[in-house]
């Protein structure tokens, strides 16, 4: 699926990836700051809704939590952790909505120079579903789980 509007290009490179590309008439430094400085992010992230940034530790392993308040009184929390932060270049973080706990999305934002004073942003979202996670349990992780359970069995036996 490719949808091109005058603003952005959306593609679905795989059955669980959404890629959106868009150019902004602003230098890379400004776009980076709009993403990483909470007081700036709060001004656009909510798409017009009020956003309360409860937490935003922009560094590897750091937590973030944004809460969006819509005019009809609905409150939606979003959160995750930073996996990679390369200044002015790349941010990789997990994204979860309170309403769908466990459905983690891995978001990557990449910033490129696109001519004088312009920036191209590529946003890629990779979906993980509990089904896939369950699939993983039945493959490689199964052996490790069995060992853990055996160790737990021994421990419980000793505690008796």
């Amino acid at each position, binding site marked *: *699926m490719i*949808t091109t509007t005058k*603003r*952005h290009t*959306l593609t*679905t490179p795989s*059955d*669980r990836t*959404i890629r*959106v590309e*868009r150019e*902004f*008439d*602003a230098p890379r*430094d*400004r*776009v980076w*700051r*709009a993403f990483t400085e909470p007081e*700036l992010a709060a*001004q*656009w*992230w*909510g*798409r*017009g809704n009020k956003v309360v940034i409860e937490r935003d530790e922009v560094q590897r392993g750091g937590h973030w939590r944004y809460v969006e308040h819509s005019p009809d009184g609905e409150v939606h929390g979003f959160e995750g952790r930073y996996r990679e932060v390369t200044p002015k270049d790349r941010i990789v973080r997990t994204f979860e*909505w309170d*309403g*769908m706990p466990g*459905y983690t*999305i891995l978001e990557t934002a990449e910033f490129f120079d696109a001519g004088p004073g312009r920036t191209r*942003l590529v*946003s890629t*979202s990779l*979906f993980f*579903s509990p*089904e*896939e996670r369950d699939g993983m349990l039945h493959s490689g992780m199964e052996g490790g789980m069995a060992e853990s359970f055996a160790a737990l069995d021994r421990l419980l036996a000793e505690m008796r």
Partner: protein
Amino acid sequence: MVQYSSDLDSVFAAVADPTRRGILERLGRREASITELAEAFDMTLTGMKKHVKVLEDAGLVQTQKVGRVRTCTLGPRRLTAEAQWIATYQQMVEARLDSLGAFLERTKGDQP
């Protein structure tokens, strides 16, 4: 897991609207007539018929007329909560980039 294909475009369009997501959620619990749905969503019959038509075209809802009552149930392409969430998320990402563009435009002259 969700399978994307070009015909999923109609699904995305169908669930882009919060009322239509609400209709799906409600029909997921039990069937309802167009009149019941119109009342539940405080909408005219004509307005509700349009929403149901969009959902029906996307295969998300099917309707059956018995006597004078048209009953709606979930269609053959049952959209899982996950697929709905992905569609909503996609809309959100697109809207967010628009919002960022507007913000950068608005703050253009500001000192860094």
